[in-house]
């Protein structure tokens, strides 16, 4: 039986409570653990400066496939029961929700680990581009050295 995997790239906001409720309905009593991660837009503007907004772009089709490839690697490593990844695109203001990862498993260890794994590779392998727009100008953001080290630490050979 294949594991339910829901991958969405959307401009609209998401509702973590609704995502959890939907997963509980899908799972019945099979899962004992659900781990979720919610990424927020951090205000990167210098103190005293107007807030910067984050502009996100994707490549429709290829982006969803790149997320699916990351999820498939997680599925091969842990006995997961349900996976949801929602990633927003468009213009986002500080404190807005940008990414949602939800992983269900029978026991917590797999859910915790897979949730972190998915986020680490979303940072380095998922096909998105981020631009920070502020009164000082526009700047495209790249994965940090720390992002790459975190992905490489999984020893998955793809980072």
């Amino acid at each position, binding site marked *: 039986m294949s594991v339910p995997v829901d991958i969405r790239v959307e401009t609209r906001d998401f509702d973590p409570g609704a995502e959890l409720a939907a997963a509980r309905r899908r799972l019945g009593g099979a899962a004992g653990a659900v781990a979720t991660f919610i*990424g927020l837009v951090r205000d990167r503007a210098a103190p005293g400066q107007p807030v910067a907004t984050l502009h996100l*772009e994707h490549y429709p*089709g*290829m982006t969803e496939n790149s997320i699916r490839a990351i999820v498939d690697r997680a599925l091969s490593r842990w006995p997961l029961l349900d996976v949801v990844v929602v*990633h927003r695109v468009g213009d986002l203001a500080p404190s807005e929700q940008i990414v949602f990862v939800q992983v269900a498993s029978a026991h917590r260890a797999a859910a915790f680990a897979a949730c972190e794994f998915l986020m680490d590779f979303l940072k380095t*392998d998922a*096909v998105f581009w*981020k*631009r920070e727009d502020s009164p000082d100008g526009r700047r495209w953001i790249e994965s940090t050295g720390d992002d790459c080290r975190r992905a490489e630490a999984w020893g998955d050979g793809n980072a």
Partner: protein
Amino acid sequence: MNLRVRFFASLREAVGRPEIDLELPDGAGHGDLLAALEARLGEPAMAALRAGNVRVARNQTLTDQPFAPADGDEIAFLPPVTGG
């Protein structure tokens, strides 16, 4: 052969447009593709596309260069990605 070439994010800004359509002679190779791009886009844009951290996707799959283009291909130039 007809190809669509797409540019994303900073490369779209460098090129000044999201995509162009190219018509190449049948049997054209990778070098012919680059030459056609250069003729259409000019040198500053080509320099951005040739940067060492730019990756190329062919029909939405990352590909090594050089590759042999085929009729109907969608070629995309991708700057470094980051999500999350």
